[in-house]
């Protein structure tokens, strides 16, 4: 009930002076299809991460 009796303060909206402007949007480059590695051949995953992805 206190919400109903609380005075409502009206505030004027502030003006957005446009400090930033969105120029355009794009989608990220599509990823290549996932390469599946056999669960019994993790050495192949290590090779791919080192030689192809250069992640390790």
């Amino acid at each position, binding site marked *: 009930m206190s919400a109903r009796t609380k005075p409502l303060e009206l505030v004027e909206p502030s003006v957005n002076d446009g*400090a930033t402007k969105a120029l355009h949007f794009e989608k990220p480059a599509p990823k290549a299809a996932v390469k599946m590695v056999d669960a019994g051949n993790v050495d192949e995953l290590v090779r791919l991460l080192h030689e192809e992805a250069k992640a390790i």
Partner: protein
Amino acid sequence: MSVLVFVEDWNGSFKKASFEATSYAKRWANMMNTQVVAVTSNSTTSSELHAYGADHVLQITLAKTGMGIAEQLGQLCNDVQGVVIAGTALGKTIGPALAALNNGSLSTNTISLPLSINPTEVKRGAFSSKGIETIELNGSLPIVSFVPNSIGIEEIEGEGETNSKDITGNDLMEITEVNVASGKVALPEAEAVVSAGRGLKGPENWGMIEELADVLGAATACSKPVSDIGWRPHSEHVGQTGIQVNPNLYIAIGISGAIQHLAGVSASKTIVVVNTDSEAPFFKAADYGIVGDAFEVIPKLVDALRAFKAAS
């Protein structure tokens, strides 16, 4: 005139993101034919910053909070053409406050160097990194807060000078307690992350995840359900409502790949997924996938990586 860069340190050492920030500032400054002023509280290893492009290092005693630091940086911005801040937890609090205090225009989540300088245009991740926005900064002070690991570091044979200055900032809040995350590698700036989900069946099985992270020098992370049920601390939760990461390598183990999780990790450069379910949606976002039982695959992967490290 100069480009100002805020250089964060932790326990007396600079964060990798701070070197990246300095390197970003140098490349931006070169576009404007001006110099880089690095602001830091670190008084012991500040000379390291010259190798990443800092022409001048300014040591100040930093305020305790982002708001106070923003006020300090604002006092240094009279002849500044741009400000660079790494998008760390602290950096994310400084940027908006600095923009508000100095009539600046801020680009958060920035993932590119400036495309142009007058006006400044940059690319930033939008819509939880599902899109890329090109944004123009029209305020009198362009401020760039970039995603760590997204720009890269360039070392140069640079040298410069170091000065100190007395500037005060008003901390509007008092920090009463600091809890430090227990992980060996800080998750938001980690170059490699090993993350696991409910597929691990219980917190007692996280030993192999930590072992794999150790071998890779990676941070450990988890999905939201895992932190919600208390298997891992909330500080490890990555995803749309957790920490958003951008490592070179993200390994997801036993995580199905809900869209909220992908939103926090999709900017990773290489994603590896290990899951028993070949239909798990995470495979569509992955670079490499293994359909298999984590309890069999991960120990083999740890051994294979150890052998690789020993041989190289």
